[in-house]
């Protein structure tokens, strides 16, 4: 594997300068996508800027108000081992821990999953449903955007040259809130989602759904936030009629391709099925919160 340079900066500013100075420089977090692409030659003539030595980019930090800042170099296993994050956003933590194998999850990060911009990334629909934001560092300073604004097409992001994601941020879990992520794969482990569904709900004391966010993976060029499906649930008590409207909205929003892992028809149907199942899990979590 040819690489021009390996850099291990210790501050965000230094990392940003290295990335800005070299158009071929790539931020390295877990490397489970980047190193594969470098080795296969899909990315050529590159250098890497390792984010794992940058202060504050490894680990989960509590934010004022009960939220969380997940450093871009934090592996999936690190999310699972964080008790408060796992209790607040189990759907996000479970999604990150469906990726690859234990070996992969000990390295792979959700910031990398987001920036690799695969339509089938497992953590992305869960993060979108949870209302996560990405803190992006660039020459002009920092900006915070909804995670769904980062991937723009398969393998493409909205990051400007020299920019990198430093943190993924989540708010505190709302009172009566619950989230879930489910995916369909032909095997039981070590596979890429044929459909992925992230759901986050808020259920009021009387059982009425007061907020909902539903995001789909692997049924479009990027993960999709389906506003119509969310709207079908808000104001309802998640009765059969509301769930049927939600399912119809999900099926209408899905625009998958057919490939070796599933046909477009199968993916579209499964998007509806999995969304209903994920809503049931999120609802149960919301009601016990």
């Amino acid at each position, binding site marked *: 594997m040819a690489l021009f340079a*390996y850099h291990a900066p210790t501050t965000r500013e230094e990392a940003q300068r290295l990335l800005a100075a070299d158009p071929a420089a790539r931020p390295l977090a877990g490397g489970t996508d980047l190193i594969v692409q470098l080795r296969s030659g899909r990315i050529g003539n590159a250098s890497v800027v390792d984010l794992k030595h940058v202060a504050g980019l490894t680990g989960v930090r509590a934010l004022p108000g009960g939220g969380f800042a997940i450093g871009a170099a934090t592996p999936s296993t690190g999310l699972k081992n964080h008790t408060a994050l796992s209790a607040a956003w189990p759907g996000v933590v479970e999604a990150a821990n469906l990726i690859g194998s234990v070996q992969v999850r000990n*390295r792979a990060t959700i910031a990398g999953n987001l920036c690799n911009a695969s339509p089938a990334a497992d953590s992305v629909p869960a993060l979108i449903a949870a209302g996560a934001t990405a803190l992006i560092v660039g020459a002009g300073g920092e900006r915070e955007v909804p995670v769904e604004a980062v991937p723009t097409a398969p393998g493409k992001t909205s990051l400007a040259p020299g920019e990198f994601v430093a943190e993924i941020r989540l708010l505190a879990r709302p009172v009566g809130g619950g989230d879930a992520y489910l995916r369909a794969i032909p095997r039981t*482990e070590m596979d890429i989602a044929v459909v992925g569904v992230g759901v986050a709900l808020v259920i009021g004391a009387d059982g009425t759904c007061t907020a909902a966010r539903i995001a789909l993976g692997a049924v479009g060029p990027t993960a999709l936030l389906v506003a119509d499906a969310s709207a079908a649930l808000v104001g309802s008590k998640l009765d059969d009629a509301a769930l049927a409207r939600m399912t119809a909205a999900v099926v209408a929003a899905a625009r998958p391709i057919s490939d070796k892992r599933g046909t477009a028809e199968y993916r579209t149907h499964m998007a509806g099925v999995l969304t209903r199942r994920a809503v049931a899990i999120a609802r149960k979590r919301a009601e016990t919160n």
Partner: protein
Amino acid sequence: MAKLAVSTTVNGDPAEFLCAPGDTLLDVLRGPLGLTGSKEGCGSGDCGSCTVMLDGAMVCSCLVLAAEAEGRVIATIEGVAEGSVLHPVQRKFLELGALQCGFCTPGFIVAAKALLEQDPDPSEHDIRYWLAGNLCRCTGYDKIVRAVSEAAAEMRQERTPA
């Protein structure tokens, strides 16, 4: 391209090597360090033949840059036996015939040992999911799962005072 000087710890001993920026940890283990127990199967993180411990976490060494090893602690298959005394996982693999060609075996043993260090009594389900990132094309996995399970039972016994 300038070579990078890396100081690390491998199987408890300090190790130093020179590497190119694009060398993987697996390249350096098998090359300059002469530790050829870790194998390169797929080179893309799918097969687990190159599994090593990096600061106590199992990883695919084909997906770690050698330069990333600076200051870290690495444990490979070569450090699993204590001298000529095999680890219970190694002994059970032999006793139960949990290998045929043996190419995947170092990765399975490193991964299985890591499992038993954090869970002394894993179920068959736990073992199969933990080892999902290690592929074997010979055995059909059954004997591997049994060997890990029996090694766990033996290690629990050893820990119980008589």
